[in-house]
């Protein structure tokens, strides 16, 4: 075995056999933000065979505080995150096959990428995409690792199809109006802590040490000094529509997807959630105000503005993103506020 991986193979649960497995595996990483860049670096250093990175965004100055992969030069070049990540990763380990895909992930385009994938790593910033991952994981029998962070808080969960409960068993509906990094801020150790858990789980799965996979949800808060693991022995639901006996994979259908449309001649994109929401506009206004948005609201709608972009959100969750015709950008802006 190569000198390069000698310290990792000395670790008995990996060993030379485990390293050979890692080097044959294909991981799909969805999202190349904070969680994505740290996960990508760890797996690249560990010598994973192939890494596919999917992301819809480009590198901005406000990313640099915590998205460890990126540099000021990436910002100056306005590089897409997937492409910038690929360049840095190949500098770290040119033996890894890195596949950068710049796209807004949907149920349809994501499924086409999963043919020979051994593990899906979640580094997204919204539950809609996670529920799509969750359904695809069940349908195609691919393990995935949920990871999320905001403020000083983080959460992770490993999902093994046919074995553990799935994310849909734990969340009956997609939570609305969760805190996002755009409304609640984020400190870098929350990212690192989530990634430490995700990467450890990923290595267990890649070396096929299934016994060691953590059978629990992890939740922590590094500022309020909390750490909790929640066992899931009774959480798997027989009637779950994603992993149960009569499954329909509901999040793979268009009716459960957020819809976007360019409004004619207005330089505005309308974003519509799958089902009407009941937003608490006053609370949302408070969160956005605290994170640097110029906010106005009344009982019917909220208008917020930052960096020249104005977003109007109606109480039922419909939004108008002004100053753009780019539907992918508009959906990303919407999900950065509402999660």
């Amino acid at each position: 075995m190569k000198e390069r991986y000698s310290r990792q193979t000395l670790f008995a649960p990996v060993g030379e056999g485990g390293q050979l497995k890692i080097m044959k595996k294909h991981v799909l990483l969805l999202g190349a933000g904070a969680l994505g860049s740290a996960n990508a670096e760890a797996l690249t250093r560990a010598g994973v065979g192939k890494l596919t990175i999917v992301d819809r965004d480009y590198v901005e100055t406000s990313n640099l505080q915590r998205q460890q992969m990126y540099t000021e030069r990436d910002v100056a070049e306005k590089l897409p995150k997937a492409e910038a990540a690929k360049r840095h990763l190949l500098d770290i380990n040119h033996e890894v096959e890195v596949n950068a895909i710049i796209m807004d992930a949907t149920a349809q385009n994501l499924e086409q990428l999963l043919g020979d994938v051994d593990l899906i790593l979640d580094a997204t910033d919204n539950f809609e995409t996670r529920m799509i991952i969750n359904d695809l994981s069940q349908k195609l029998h691919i393990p995935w690792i949920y990871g999320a962070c905001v403020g000083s808080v983080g959460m992770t969960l490993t999902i093994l199809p046919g074995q553990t409960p799935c994310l849909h068993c734990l969340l009956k509906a997609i939570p609305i109006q969760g805190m996002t990094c755009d409304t609640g801020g984020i400190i870098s150790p929350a990212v690192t802590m989530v990634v430490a858990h995700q990467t450890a789980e990923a290595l267990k799965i890649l070396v096929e040490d299934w016994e060691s996979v953590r059978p629990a949800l992890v939740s922590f808060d590094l500022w309020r000094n909390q750490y909790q693991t929640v066992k899931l022995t009774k959480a798997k639901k027989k009637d779950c529509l994603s992993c149960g006996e009569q499954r329909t994979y509901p999040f793979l259908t268009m009716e459960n997807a957020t819809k976007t449309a360019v409004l004619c001649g207005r330089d505005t994109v309308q974003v519509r959630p799958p089902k009407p929401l009941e937003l608490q506009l006053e609370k949302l206004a408070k969160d956005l105000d605290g994170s640097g948005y110029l906010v106005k609201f009344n009982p019917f709608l909220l208008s917020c503005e930052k960096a020249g972009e104005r977003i109007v959100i109606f109480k039922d969750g419909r939004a108008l993103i002004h100053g753009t015709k780019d539907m992918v950008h508009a959906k990303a802006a919407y999900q950065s506020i509402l999660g």
Partner: protein
Amino acid sequence: MINVLLFAQLKDELGKETVSIEGNGMSVAQLKGKMKVDFQLEGLETVMTAVNEEFADDDTILSDGDTVAFIPPVSGG
């Protein structure tokens, strides 16, 4: 008494991490309703609940001495 543990922003909303509630025989949903009325806690509908460190549904019945943790799901990344 039921010991209730509040995580993340819920801890800030209540101003402390734990509270004891008279709730023997209540369901998790009823406890959430009581917490909402007594402490004006928002967003309990979508939190994950653990009873004695085991994931629990809204219809789980609580007994004296149980520890209930309310954990808001996290979305960012």
